[in-house]
């Protein structure tokens, strides 16, 4: 197969739903499967790459911030970017620009761009296959 590019559209924000970790696991598996990956983050998912996400301690767990090592979706994206680079694969990420604006999450980590639904169509039409994970 020549074109091993896969596109994923995702809609959920961080810290709200189990769909988020399933989505990240699927993208991780796509890189393992030898695919280049393109992500279109729509609606709440535009906050997944928000650079100002901050890990916190947890007094209920009796752990400070370092001990708690709280997961942040921006770190998961960065980890996928590193993995893609290590494997020689491409990981492109576009946030819906209007979704970013209305949520005030403009400051994304490096490598995550601002775009529009035209990018989703551009991604999908240049990919071998696409999976949409809608919100509920």
């Amino acid at each position: 197969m020549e074109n091993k590019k896969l596109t994923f559209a995702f809609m959920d924000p961080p810290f709200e739903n189990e769909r988020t970790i399933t989505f990240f696991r699927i993208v991780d598996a796509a890189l393992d499967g030898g695919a280049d990956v393109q992500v279109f983050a729509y609606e709440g998912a535009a906050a997944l790459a928000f650079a100002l996400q901050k890990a916190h301690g947890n007094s209920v767990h009796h752990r400070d911030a370092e001990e708690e090592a709280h997961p942040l979706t921006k770190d998961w994206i960065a980890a996928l970017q590193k993995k893609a680079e290590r494997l020689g694969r491409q990981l492109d990420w576009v946030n819906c620009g209007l979704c970013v604006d209305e949520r005030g999450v403009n400051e994304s980590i490096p490598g995550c761009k601002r775009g529009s639904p035209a990018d989703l169509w551009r991604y999908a039409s240049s990919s071998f296959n696409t999976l949409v994970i809608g919100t509920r």
Partner: protein
Amino acid sequence: MKGYLFIQSQDQFYDARTSAQYKLVVSLAEAKESVSILLVQNAVLATRKGVESNIYADLNQHNIQVYADELSLKQREISPEELSDGIKPVKIDVVIDAMLNGDKVVWW
């Protein structure tokens, strides 16, 4: 052969939509399409032996392969031995295999 993989994240105890979804996959299978379902997240709660529903046995009878995400099972402490007949635990990689096979992969 290209087919369909439906990723079922909704569980039948909570989401009434699952009934209509399973009718659709049976219809596709009856139309000679190759159909598989991957249960993820709380959808795997219905995989344990003793659950009052034989929906997966019915799907199997229509040659629909039913998979369950290994991590979702582990998180809920459902061991492979506790699974109803016809449900195969798999890694999430099956999603990528299906996508790279050109299957229509649909998230529920």
